[in-house]
């Protein structure tokens, strides 16, 4: 057997020494691998890049602000939006720069000007300026925005109820219609969406206060009216003019003597100048220029995110 009693030979265990060094190197490599694994766990728990979803949130706010500016410019008849958009851009920019984000909102091109058709009397029926109760408001309409009706007095039966129609040009019977009457306890709104849509529906709102209908948003006195939006059961669309198959339509009012109140709408078609007077004068329905939509240049910039786009703001349109 090997001589285990100590001798002066001092080079025992060389292999063990080499093995120890090699294992030490292996442990160091293992430590690096574990370090990478811990870093991977940390990276996995990080969220999205800072500011990436804020770009879209802020875009929505800008769209809303610009929409309000358009509504205001139309109501006071000034039709100037440049100043409001600069203000929106400046105010928002100052707020966001504190968080290290650069925002720029500016007008991309001149606003699209179309026609506003309205009637403000609060106590007169919806008759044309010639006194007709069945009359045409506009032709060649492709889009209608911001259509609101306020009524104090209505017919009591559906047979002679006031009706607003979108008549598809070309085919007879290609009509979307909304009829409103008061059956004593409730206001009844009946919608027939036309040949390309589901069957007609109605919704009721209790009478007692004047009726305010926002046709594009689908509300009556603030309550959601499924007949103007979507059939609750089938989910089919009932929005303004959805069932009309033609690409453009005419807007007609029938039994205009059976309603008293106000209305207002913005259309991108040709107004009927026989039935409407130019400019608002108390007593007759009128037409006037109005901003239909605006193209806005939107920029959102942070060190990691850049989003530059042109967005179209068109308030009061139906979702389609």
């Amino acid at each position, binding site marked *: *057997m*090997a*001589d285990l009693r100590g001798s002066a030979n001092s080079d025992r265990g060389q*292999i*063990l020494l*080499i*093995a120890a060094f*090699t*294992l030490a190197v*292996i442990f160091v*490599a*293992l430590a*690096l*691998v574990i370090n*990478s*694994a811990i*870093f*991977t766990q940390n*990276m*996995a728990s*990080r969220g*999205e*890049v800072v500011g*990436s*979803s804020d*770009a*879209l949130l802020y*875009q929505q706010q800008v769209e809303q602000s610009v929409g309000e500016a358009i509504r205001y410019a139309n109501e006071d008849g000034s039709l100037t939006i440049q100043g409001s958009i600069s203000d929106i851009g400046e105010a928002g920019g100052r707020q966001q720069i504190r968080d290290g984000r650069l925002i720029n909102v500016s007008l991309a091109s001149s606003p699209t000007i179309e026609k506003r058709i309205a009637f403000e009397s609060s106590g007169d029926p919806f008759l044309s300026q010639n006194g007709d109760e069945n009359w045409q408001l506009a032709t060649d309409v492709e889009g209608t925005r911001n259509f609101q009706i306020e009524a104090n007095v209505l017919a009591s039966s559906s047979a002679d109820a006031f009706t607003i129609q979108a008549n598809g040009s070309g085919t007879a019977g290609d009509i979307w219609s909304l009829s409103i009457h008061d059956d004593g306890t409730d206001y009844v709104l009946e919608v027939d969406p036309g040949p390309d849509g589901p069957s007609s529906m109605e919704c009721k709102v209790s009478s007692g206060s004047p009726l305010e209908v926002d046709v594009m948003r689908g509300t009556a006195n603030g309550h959601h009216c499924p007949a103007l939006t979507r059939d609750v059961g089938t989910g089919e669309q009932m929005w303004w003019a959805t069932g009309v198959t033609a690409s453009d339509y005419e807007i007609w009012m029938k039994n205009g003597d059976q309603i008293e109140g106000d209305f207002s709408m913005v259309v991108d078609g040709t107004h009927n100048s026989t039935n409407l007077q130019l400019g608002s004068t108390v007593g007759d329905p009128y037409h006037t220029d109005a901003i239909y939509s605006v*193209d806005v240049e*939107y920029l959102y910039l942070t*060190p*990691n*995110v*850049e*989003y*530059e*786009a*042109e*967005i*179209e703001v068109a308030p009061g349109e139906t979702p389609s």
Partner: protein
Amino acid sequence: MTDRATSTTLSYVLTLSIATVLVGGLILAGSTFVEDQRENVIRQEMQVVGEHLASNIEQVDRYNRSADRLEEARVSQTFPSDVTGSSYLVELEDDGGQPQLHLTSSQPRVTVSLNVSVSEDNVEGSEASGGRILARCTGTGTDPCEPEIDNA
């Protein structure tokens, strides 16, 4: 009397060779273990990098869908320039309808693939190496833009 038919050389040789074999086996097992773990960690790290990058690409696609006319959309993020000591390459390709992100490390050769869901199912074939990677979509006016990746 206890040292008949013995040889000092033989006993040394036997002891040393047994020790060498045992220690050698231990080192081999140790380094194989470390290599395996390194490969696992590389795969996991590239999976995480890929998922962050895929979500950036999808965010850029969301920008494209929210705008009426997109001019430029870009999201940049700094990723580690190597995974556990090995550099890696990221490739974004169309693969006939299903956009995919492939990450390949150089040494050892590990590949990780992920699906990316964009609205048009069209991406610009592009590649980037590890480091600061951006996902970008440049508007062309009429056509929907195709996201791509690049080194910032």
